[in-house]
């Protein structure tokens, strides 16, 4: 099996070959193949700019891989600001000995994911580091998007705004945990990893009054809601029964003592919208397969500013706190 060697990162012939035969082949576009020191870009109006680095073990999991994550993650960060994803950079840090075949699968997956939003990779970097310096492969992506709707912000949520979750929660965290532990709980469990721009574009096209959007990645739904409550100084009152959790994810939570609200997602977002637009927003989202379970889960009030209150179906309530540090399984 062909493997990546240190010489592939040396800047000479092998590097050149890797870039042309692999990256250009899959990411080909007019800007990238000019191979200049920097990409020269054309945009209109305000731009949004973001970056993220991706490390995941295992690199391939049910529903995605590190490449899909690296593209969807950055494209989604732009989308959550109401920005149409346009241009991405992509930097690979590859451990010496990494299989070419796997690298190609990852690059193919990135190209496929880019097509969903129409964004292009216009510049990049490749480093190969000695064995043990990184865990197989790290990818950094940065992205630029054209702001289509201004004012979407975690500080813009107002009393009365309705909170919508785009689908069931916790799938990515549960899937990666299961893959890491080599446990097979159910064939139906897969990551939610997905490019969200089409769904966001639909919300904007329907002229829905959106106060805030946020993809619930690390820290899960609990982290997003707490950040929003704090940044907008509102109380978010959430109906626990309205939060959808698949049986597989709930089962894993039961086994290890986790909360589904703390688990990571990679294709699930939360929207705060004006109350009169809530039903339109939900039906606009439900047109997309990955948002067919979109639902209103709560609303913003003034009761406990800065806090998230979870209402149980049987009449009690409690605060939903931020997840704490690394997720460790319970003892018994």
């Amino acid at each position, binding site marked *: 099996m062909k493997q990546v060697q240190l010489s592939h990162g040396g800047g000479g012939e092998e590097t050149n070959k890797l870039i042309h035969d692999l990256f250009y082949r899959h990411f080909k576009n007019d800007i990238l193949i000019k191979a200049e020191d920097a990409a020269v870009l054309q945009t209109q109006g305000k731009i949004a700019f973001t970056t993220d680095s991706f490390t995941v073990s295992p690199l391939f999991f049910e529903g995605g891989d590190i490449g899909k994550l690296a593209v969807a993650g950055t494209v989604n960060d732009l989308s959550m600001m109401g920005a149409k994803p346009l241009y991405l950079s992509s930097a690979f840090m590859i451990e010496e000995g990494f299989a070419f075949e796997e690298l190609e699968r990852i690059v193919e997956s990135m190209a496929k994911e880019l097509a969903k939003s129409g964004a292009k990779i216009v510049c990049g970097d490749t480093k190969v580091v000695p064995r043990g310096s990184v865990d197989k492969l790290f990818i950094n992506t940065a992205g630029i998007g054209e702001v289509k709707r201004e004012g979407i912000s975690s500080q813009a949520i107002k009393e009365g705004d309705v909170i919508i979750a785009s689908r069931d929660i916790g799938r990515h965290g549960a899937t990666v945990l299961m893959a890491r532990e080599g446990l097979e709980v159910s064939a139906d469990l897969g990551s939610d990893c997905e490019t969200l721009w089409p769904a966001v574009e639909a919300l904007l096209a329907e002229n829905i009054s959106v106060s805030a959007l946020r993809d619930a990645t690390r820290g899960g739904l609990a982290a997003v809601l707490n950040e929003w409550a704090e940044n907008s100084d509102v109380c978010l009152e959430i109906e626990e029964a309205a939060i959808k959790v698949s049986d597989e994810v709930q089962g894993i939570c039961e086994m290890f003592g986790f909360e589904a609200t703390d688990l990571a997602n990679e294709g699930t977002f939360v929207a705060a919208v004006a109350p009169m637009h809530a039903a339109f927003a939900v039906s606009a989202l439900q047109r997309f397969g990955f948002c067919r379970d979109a639902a209103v889960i709560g609303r913003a009030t003034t009761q406990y500013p800065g806090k998230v209150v979870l209402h149980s179906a049987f009449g009690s309530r409690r605060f939903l706190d931020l997840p704490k540090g690394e997720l460790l399984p*319970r003892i018994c």
Partner: protein
Amino acid sequence: MSELKLKDLYDGFRDPATIRMLAAQIGEEAKALHEPLRIMEVCGGHTHTIMKYGLPQLLPGNIDFIHGPGCPVCIMPKERIDHAIALARMEDTILVTLGDMIRVPGSQSSLAVERAAGRDIRPLYTPMDALKIAKENPDKRVVFFAIGFETTTPMTAALLHAAVTQKVDNLYFHINHVLVPPAIDAIMSDGQAKINAFIGPSHVSVITGAKIYAPLPQKYGTPVVVCGFEPVDVMQGILMAVRQQVEGRAELEIEYSRSVTMEGNVKAQQLIDMYLQPRSHFRWRGIGDIPDSALELREEFAYLDAEKVFAEVLPTEPIDDHKLCICGTILKGLAKPMECKVFGTACTPNSPLGSCMVSSEGACNAYYRYAGVLG
């Protein structure tokens, strides 16, 4: 028989209509109580359920929960955590343990801090993974820092059995398994805690059988209901305790009859007995020394006992908690987390002073996460 799904384990036991019905029933029957019912939930898992589901909000004012010493992380004295740290600092050593133990502060450091400093410390999802790690690292010593009550002890016994029968010679055991009944006895015989009913953890009794609680009703005149961890279970258990009190009975009852018998899992008990024996003394964090309240390896397996094999690196001095921390008082059922001066200020889950704030099963942690001003 159809295949058992994970969903079956909890589905139905969180049913809103059932919980509301039980709450109404408890409210009605509790009117006949002559004095407030002060229920100790011995186990941190119950504390977690009670706080997570906001059950006190559904109950009448004359029912009060008192949190017991049943969290294996909370009761671990600092010197034992220092043992784990000392073992992890040995050359060519991998220290493995369960869950929250990684975060608990010892006298100077914690396993999380040591791991960041480069020690090889790994949290396990199941103790049996320790065997795999030992086999994969034949040139290293793997030390399993074993913790937990009667529930997790069989897994340690199974790991011991596998290590002995498969002749894995680089896996050592630091045993910190503790026992529920001596701890309850210590709290009740102290006489300060005003407890007049118990709900006992069902998972302990799945192993030991409900029989371990049999002496309590007679000795202290308190009802004991062995209870599951779902909200319906806890509410049903409370109703059973209320009924006993109203009817003037003090008996051992099993709410969690779907898995608990009086005898328990005899095979698991035999396996534990083969490898482990009662330890004459164990110092509980905040409570102090309780005789016969923990287990240790039998003499014939001393060659696997990290406390003996690596005795020269282990500190021996007992170390008390931070002066401002009242974890001990909370564990004895004499105070609630919010009565602690440093609760939520100097002591939070991110920087805990005391062990009750560290573990997700600890009373302070459960109060901090779920109660706040909603209390």
